[in-house]
C-alpha cells in the first residue's frame, strides 16, 4: 500500500488537487460554522421559550420541547434525507449546499438549545427568585442575572459540540454537497488509490479538529478554574 501511495504522490500533489482540497475544507468549515451560528441564535430562542412561565406560552413551550427532543433523536443522515426530499417536494430548484446548510442549522439548533437551557437552569434557583423579587422580567433576569453566571457553563460543551459537528458534516457528502468527504470520493473516482484519497481527507479533518479540540480543553480548564476560584 505504501509503495502505491508514494508512486501516486507526485501526481496527487498538483496545484489544482490541492486547491480543490482547500476549497473543500473551507466548505466543511463554512457548513459547520453556519450551523453553529444559526444554532446559537435559534438555540437561545428555544431555551428562552422553554423557560417562560406563563400559560400563554404553553403551545410554544411544547413546540420548543418537541423540536429539541425530535431533532436530537433522529440521526443526521435521516434528517438530511428528509430535508433533501422536502425541498424536492416544494418544486423549487434549491442548490444542494442550501439543503445541507438548512439541515445542519436544524440539528445544531436542537443540540445547542439543549446545552444553553442546561446552562441557564444550572444557575441556582435563589438567583432566579431574587431577580423575580426585584421585579425583573424574564429577559432582564436572563440578561443581567443568569447569563453572566451561566456562560461559563455553556461555553465548553457548546464548543465541544462545534468540534464534534465538524466531523458530523461529513455525512452531507451523501446528498452531494461538495465538502471534504465528497472531495475524497471525487479524488478516489479520479483514479487515486482509496488509501491516498481517504487517508489525506482523514489527515485534513484531523488538522482542523485537533487544534480546536485542544483549544476547547484549554477553555474548559480555564473556565473551570475561574469558576472554582470565585466560589
Amino acid at each position, binding site marked *: *500500500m505504501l509503495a*502505491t501511495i508514494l508512486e501516486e504522490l507526485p501526481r496527487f500533489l498538483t496545484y489544482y488537487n490541492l486547491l480543490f482540497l482547500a476549497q473543500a475544507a473551507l466548505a466543511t468549515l463554512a457548513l459547520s460554522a453556519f450551523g453553529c451560528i444559526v444554532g446559537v441564535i435559534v438555540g437561545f430562542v428555544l431555551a428562552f421559550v422553554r423557560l417562560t412561565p406563563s400559560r400563554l406560552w404553553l403551545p410554544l413551550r411544547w413546540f420548543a420541547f418537541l423540536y429539541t*427532543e*425530535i431533532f436530537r*433523536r*433522529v*440521526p*443526521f*443522515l*435521516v*434528517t438530511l*434525507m*428528509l430535508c433533501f*426530499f*422536502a425541498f*424536492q*417536494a*416544494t*418544486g423549487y430548484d434549491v442548490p444542494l449546499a442550501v439543503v445541507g446548510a438548512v439541515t445542519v442549522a436544524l440539528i445544531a439548533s436542537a443540540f445547542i438549545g439543549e446545552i444553553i437551557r442546561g446552562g441557564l437552569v444550572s444557575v441556582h434557583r435563589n438567583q432566579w427568585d431574587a431577580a423575580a423579587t426585584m421585579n425583573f422580567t424574564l429577559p432582564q433576569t436572563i440578561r443581567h442575572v443568569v447569563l453572566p453566571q451561566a456562560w461559563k457553563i455553556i461555553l465548553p460543551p457548546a464548543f465541544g459540540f462545534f468540534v464534534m459537528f465538524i*466531523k*458530523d458534516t*461529513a*455525512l452531507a*457528502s*451523501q446528498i452531494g454537497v461538495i465538502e471534504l*468527504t465528497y472531495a*475524497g*470520493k471525487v479524488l*478516489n473516482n479520479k483514479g487515486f*488509490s*482509496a*488509501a491516498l484519497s*481517504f*487517508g489525506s*481527507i*482523514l489527515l485534513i*479533518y*484531523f488538522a482542523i*479538529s*485537533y487544534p480546536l*479540540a485542544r483549544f476547547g480543553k484549554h477553555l474548559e480548564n480555564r473556565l473551570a478554574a475561574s469558576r472554582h476560584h470565585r466560589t
Partner: protein
Amino acid sequence: MNYVFQYGQIWPFLPRLFDGALVSLQIAILAFCGGLLIGTACAAVKTFGPKLAAWLIDIYVTFFTNTPQLVQIYFLYFALPDMGILLTSFAAVLIGMTLNAGAYLTEIQRAGFESRRVSEMEAAEVLGFSRLQQIRYVILPHVARVLFPPLSNQFIIMTLGTSMAAVFGVEELTGQAMNINSQTFRSIEVFTVAAGLYIVLTLVASVALSLIGRFAFRARTGLI
C-alpha cells in the same frame, strides 16, 4: 407546495423497517460492547501501564476522536482491499464503529478509573476486605455510579450513529428506508416513519438505561 402525503403505500413495508431497526440495535450493541472492552483495556493500561503503551493509546484516541467516523469506515472499506483485506460492508461498519467507540470509551473509562479514591480502598483493607471484595463492594459501586450516565449517553449516540451504515449498503433502519424509497418513491413518508422509529428506539433505550441505572447502580440519570 401541493404534496399529497400517502402513508398508505408505506404500511406494507413496515415489517422491513422493523427488521432494519433490529439490525441497527444489533450493530449498536455489538459495537458498544466491543468498544467497552477496548476502552476499559486502554484506560487500564493508560492508568497503570508503562509510559510507551500509554503514549500509543493516546495516539489512537486522539486520531479516532478527531476524524469523522464516516471517513474512517470509508478507509476501512475501500483502502484495506488494496492490502488484501476484504471486508463485507457489515464487518467494515462494525469494525469502524467499534474502533471509534473504543476511543471515546477510553476517555470515559479513564475518568472512572481516576475517580476511585485511594482512601476508600485503604479503609476497605483495614476492615479486612479481600481484594475481590474491595472491587465488588467498594470500587465497583462507586465507579459504576460515576460512569453509568456518560456510558448510556454514549450508547444513545452510537445508536443514532448506526444510520451511517446505510451509506455502505447495510440494510439497517436507514438502509431499509432508502430501499423502500427507491421502490415506492414516497420519500418523505418513508423517512418520517424511519425518523419516528429512531425516536421510539432511542426513547426506549433511554428509559431502559435510566431504570437500570437507578436500580442497579443508584446512578442519578435523567432521561438522556
